[in-house]
């Protein structure tokens, strides 16, 4: 039940950008490129979740965005830490 259409439209736009990032995720020559794409997707997903929470008009959905904003970078940190060790 979408109650605020502009927010949903913005969310759809974000999904389009995620698609673009997915291209980088698939072609990225090095793992670091892919990780950057993942990081960007993380941020975009958080934005999408916030926007869609407003679009649905439901506060309780926003908790998910908080969890993502807080935790999504842990995965990135692990990949970065792996990269730090060199290509072993």
């Amino acid at each position, binding site marked *: *039940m979408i109650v605020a259409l502009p927010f949903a439209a913005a969310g759809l736009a974000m999904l389009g950008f995620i698609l673009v990032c997915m291209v980088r995720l698939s072609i990225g020559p090095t793992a670091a490129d892919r990780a950057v794409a993942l990081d960007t997707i993380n941020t975009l997903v958080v934005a999408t979740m916030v926007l869609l929470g407003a679009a*649905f*008009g*439901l*506060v*309780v*959905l926003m908790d998910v965005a908080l969890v993502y904003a807080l935790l999504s970078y842990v995965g990135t940190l692990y990949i970065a830490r792996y990269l730090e060790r060199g290509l072993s």
Partner: protein
Amino acid sequence: MIGNVPFVVCMVLVLLGLWALLFRRNLVKIVIGVKIIENGVNLYLVATGYVRGGIVPIYTYAPPDAVMVLPTPQALTLTSIVIGLATTALMLAFVVVIHRHKKSLDGRKVTELSG
């Protein structure tokens, strides 16, 4: 409205994971295949519970007189997700120990038990 596309996509995910299990010899890849199957099944479960026009089955700050989606599949999926994490952790532990003994992740090279 969108027909059964979500259900079909879930099955596609299951089949994708099965494909990885069938044709990838790397042990970590096999675990990844299991994860993909699991994602598909979880999505299937949640998709069965969706009601068109429904909202979250939570009464806090809910708009009055709204249709709610079915809550049971969500509870089942929660259980399923944690089970999935548990199996993944155990499988990866086995992979790590196998690699420690065999220095390889190729299914053909690490296999000792056969026949």
